[in-house]
């Protein structure tokens, strides 16, 4: 059975790129435009993987990532961070949020900095969900 992959990104261009990569490789693409919509979609569809942008309106990727990793029912869903933000800045923001909310969230195990070649993105997806 094909696996469901959710793309959360406010940039239409990025969404259509990732969706095409997913379609080309027999995954079922799901899309959301911001953090809030992303969470709704995750709760509803329980995707096998989330590809998550960091800078978005309405609940940033950092916030959504934090939410996922602190929710018992959702923490097992693998996440690929896919963003124009340097990893260093992301980790710094994540640390701030950790301190603010208490507890510590694991670092994202795959972090892709845009721009990314389709092959690179596919390799990352395969690594997580085959």
């Amino acid at each position, binding site marked *: 059975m094909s696996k469901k992959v959710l793309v959360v990104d406010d940039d*239409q261009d990025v969404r259509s790129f990732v969706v*095409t990569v997913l379609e080309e490789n027999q995954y079922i693409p799901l899309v959301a435009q911001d953090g809030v919509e992303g969470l709704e979609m995750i709760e509803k569809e329980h995707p096998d993987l989330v590809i998550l942008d960091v800078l978005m309106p309405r609940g940033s990727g950092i916030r959504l990532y934090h939410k996922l990793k602190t929710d018992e029912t959702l923490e097992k869903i693998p996440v690929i961070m896919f963003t124009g933000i340097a990893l260093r800045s992301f980790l710094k923001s994540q640390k701030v949020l950790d301190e603010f909310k208490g507890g510590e969230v694991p670092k994202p195990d795959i972090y892709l900095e845009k*721009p990314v070649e389709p092959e690179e993105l596919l390799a990352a997806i395969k690594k997580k969900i085959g």
Partner: protein
Amino acid sequence: MSANKILIVDDEEIIVKLLSMSLRSDGYETVTANSGEQGLEVFNSESPDIVVTDIKMPGMGGLELLKKIKEIDPEKEVIIVTGHGDIDSTITALQYGASDFINKPVRDEALAIALERAKAKIAIREKLKEYTENLEIKVAEATEEIRRKSNFQRLLIKSSHDAIVAFDHDWKVVVYNPEAGKMFGEAAADVINKMTIDDLYTPKIAKIFKNLAQKEKQQNTLPWKENIINTKDGRKIPVKYTSNVLYKTGEFVGTVNFFQDLTEIKRLEKELVQSERLAAVGQTVSGLAHYVKNILIGLKGGSYVVDVGIAKNDTEKLKTGWKTIKRNIKRIGDLTQDLLTYSKQREPEFENCVPNDIVNEIIELLKDFVASKGISISKELDTGIGEVLADPKTIHNSLLNIINNAIDACIDDEDISKKHEVKVKTYMDKNNYFCFEVTDNGCGMDEDTQKQMFNPMFSSKGGKGTGLGLLVTGKLIEEHKGVIEIKTSPGEGSTFTIRLPYEKENTADIN
């Protein structure tokens, strides 16, 4: 101390005894001697306050005793007892400093009076001495105080970081401290009491201070001002200076000039500006690179989607990919346009236009997009504005930019419980400017964003902003002699106001 000890000297023992008894009964302490020599001895050992001596005695007489006593201590009072009306002896006794005379036979009252007078003299002398000593101490203290103060002042002037130069009423230099030496390059020894203001300063600077002194008719300290002084050896020194015009009982007595060398401060200021400029350039370049990178991401993604469309002969894919590419080509176009607008000086092109119509056009343009984001947009237009002479392109571009920013501020707001709205208002202000006010209740700006919002390539919108929008708007408004004002509060929203000078429509055409 009251004088109480009396030495009685007489060769007749009985007289000595009688006098002694009489004085003791009056409360005096007495010591006695029966000859001049013995008298001197007792005087030395007992140190009496008053001596009463017979003038005629075998051996050392009264006069000689008097002389010797006065040599030892001129302040002791000696009363001479005479029995002869001997004028010569009296004169000699006076010359030696006798305090009084009484005649033999000694009557108690006469002696009492003489003693009282002698005591009074001693008392006066002691008082006088006390006063004199006090006065000396006081004078010494005052002198010390003055010396200390003047030393302190001299030290202050000497070690001051300000160059201090003072002139007397003839404009001759009387004070010239080491800092002044550094500033004007002349040795103090060649300046003080030798040069006048015209020798020391260049004519321009000398004139400033002379004029100041002439203008001020009373003692006054002038406010600090900045200027550049040219020294006689050709250096240019930026200084802050002030001058004190000195008056003493209405008479002009001179002036004191203070100079602060600003060379170092100016250098640091320049350095700061330079480093700020470098930082701005760095930020500009990195901001631009970031934005171009985002366009590149779009183009790469789009071309991948197009490739897939071609390979599969999938028209939908082709359309999607092509749209992405076109969108990013437009972004490059917009960026180029913004860069050009920002870098070129442009004169506004004035024509008759109706500001309210421009607002309506823009709202019409954005209506659907705004609605799709769940934001409401409202307007409140002052119909009194009517037609004005202005550049409609400036108004259109600037207004579109700040309304777009207001919409973005609503979209980016993390507080999704808010009912987001953008309000556009036009009105005339009291300074005869027509104004556009755009208010949103979006995310607002933190202090850092506020500081940087007019910096080139600074964007708070991640990769989606060029960081040129407000910059270009600010420039357009400035070229139009207008102002842009911002009120913002993080989490509560912002208000941007554009004020443009109100010029009535060009009525010449109508007539």
